[in-house]
């Protein structure tokens, strides 16, 4: 059974169809990319999946249970974590606190335990601090646990956002343009990190990405969207040669000229 099953979802804003009748399924343990030109509906797709938008029609099932009608925090608690296209950290909190907020769904202590500093509360805090530190190390952040998130350099902020998303122990990780603005070395590192997350932690990854080096390198499956419609899905090799995809990216003329381009 697929981990995530999306059937015929549609989402319109006024007269604009941001997502139009998209059907998509994702198996456990895979790394899949969603690509498409700007405005194709990729981020809207993520937002619908995480409950920020309510789809007009269609069905979303995760682990066999419907996600429709759930609030974003409930969906997060079901095991879907995400990062954002324009990094959204808690800027005035420290790095370690950012990650600890990511563990929110796992805290079990009652108000009484908090007020009276019971042993169980202290233990939980200590363990979550240690887990946060482990995650920092895992994504490659060192000795910055007490820095404010806003003071980190750009690449580190991206990594912190990933660590925060991992803190919830998700089953599915949604990454919105994680390699945007990174140099080739950083991109290489982050690809390695994603592979690691999937292989070692067993987390399924769905990512939106414009950087084709990343997409072609890492994806086992690629879903292409254009104007809210899913126009293709397949392996990197299939997508590379799909005429509709090339049309969407480069225009109709490009398909005709593709042959000549290859000759050069």
């Amino acid at each position: 059974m697929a981990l995530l099953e999306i059937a015929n979802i549609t989402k319109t804003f006024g007269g604009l169809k941001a997502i139009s009748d998209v059907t998509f399924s994702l198996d456990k343990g895979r790394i899949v990319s969603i690509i498409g030109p700007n405005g194709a509906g990729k981020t809207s797709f993520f937002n619908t999946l995480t409950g920020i938008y309510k789809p007009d029609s269609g069905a979303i099932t995760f682990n066999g249970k419907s996600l429709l009608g759930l609030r974003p925090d409930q969906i997060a608690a079901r095991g879907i974590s995400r990062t954002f296209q324009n990094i959204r950290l808690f800027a005035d909190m420290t790095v370690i606190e950012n990650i600890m907020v990511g563990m929110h769904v796992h805290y079990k202590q009652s108000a009484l335990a908090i007020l009276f500093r019971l042993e169980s509360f202290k233990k939980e805090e200590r363990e979550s601090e240690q887990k946060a530190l482990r995650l920092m190390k895992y994504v490659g952040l060192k000795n910055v646990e007490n820095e404010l998130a806003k003071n980190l350099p750009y690449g580190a902020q991206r990594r912190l956002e990933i660590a925060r998303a991992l803190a919830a122990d998700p089953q599915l990780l949604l990454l919105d343009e994680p390699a945007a603005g990174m140099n080739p070395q950083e991109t290489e590192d982050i690809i390695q990190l994603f592979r690691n997350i999937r292989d070692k932690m067993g987390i399924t990854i769905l990512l939106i990405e414009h950087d084709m080096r990343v997409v072609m390198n890492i994806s086992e499956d690629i879903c292409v969207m254009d104007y809210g419609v899913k126009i293709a899905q397949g392996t990197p090799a299939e997508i590379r040669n799909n005429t509709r995809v090339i049309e969407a990216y480069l225009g109709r003329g490009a398909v005709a000229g593709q042959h000549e381009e290859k000759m050069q």
Partner: protein
Amino acid sequence: MVSSYFKELFDKVNQGPLAYILITVHVIAGTYLVYTEPRSNLAFLVLITSFMSLYFFQADVRFKLFVGAVLALVIIPVVGVRNIFYLEVIFQISVFAALALGLNIVVGFAGLLDLGYVAFYAVGAYLWAFFGSQQFYVLHYAPGTQPSDLPFLLPGDAFYMFLLVGVVIAGLTGILLGLPVLRLKGDYLAIVTLGFGEVIRVLANNLDKPLNFTNGPQGITPIQRPTMPDFAVDWFNTIFSPLVGHPISPADMYNLMFYIYALIVIIVIIFVTRRLDDSKLGRAWTAVREDETAAIAQGIPLVRMKLTAFAVGASFAGVMGVLLAASRTFISPESFSFMQSIGVLTMVILGGSGSIPGVILGAAVVTTLNLQVLQGFSLYLNELRQSDAVIPVINFAWKDLSTQLDPAKYQKLFFGLILILMMIFRPAGLIPAKRRKRQVAPEESK
């Protein structure tokens, strides 16, 4: 720059035994000045700023606690009984500090701008005012027409229970208000809370018919006080009378008692605030303040977290309301005006939104400015006006000075100026909020 020069100077003295000496000197000097000059505002300012020395200088925590306890439990009661006005100032500072701490949870931690916060204070105050007075038997009389021999509904000692009831009822009011309102953000939330604050005040003003719940604009009086334990009276008289120099009257004793109660409430509130702040709850509040979308994506239920912030903040105001009603034995709607909400907000912003020592300092500064500095200045000008003194150089007789220039009348102007200057030069407040640094213990081997 001047400020960096002072900072260096401060860092230089703020270490080793010098810090201890300075704290002690400050406390003793303040005490001596107030003791010898019981009417001087300046002397009193020296004394209460010693709390700041206590906070800013580096010293052992036990030493600080000890000095703080001596200040709060011995020195202030003694000088307070000698000049009851001082005790009143300190009591008001404590009340407003509690309100500011409550509003700080809503505004400072969770980032929800609440312009009607004083409504919860009113809820607490009217709660005890109703149950702790004759009001229950006045229900069917129009204000002013009730017979004078009505019994009281509850004994004065029910006050203690009502401190808890006040917490619960104000908290519930917070939730009740929050439920429809908290889906709003920013400006909209501010406007609706402003409206709610006014609704409560108008209700208090008008609920004197058809059933007379609040006695309208005249307010409710007398409100009962708890009885004072006998041993406390004896104890106080034996220990403090020699220091004060005369036997302590029952009225003074009550003022002292409410001062102590306010102190206890403040300590509990600080304790609760600190513990909540340093837990998943505090982190979730701050996360909501920083970025709602990101917070909800981490599984934080927005509405529930905001409601909790509202309820906790409201409950602090509720308990202080109960305390206020009992200590004043009289309350009326005008104590809960919009300006009061703004005043508390000023304390939070001035002191440092989100910072516990900050908002307490904010409450102290605004209250002393209000009650002491401006009033004292007004009194001083009045004295000059009555004398034959003349301003040199421009040759202007003080007695020709218009009473319109009375500083106490310019209270709001000063607030406005303070806020503008703060926003320009120190937007994070007098004592800005700091995130706690965590020392993560090494992993236990498994």
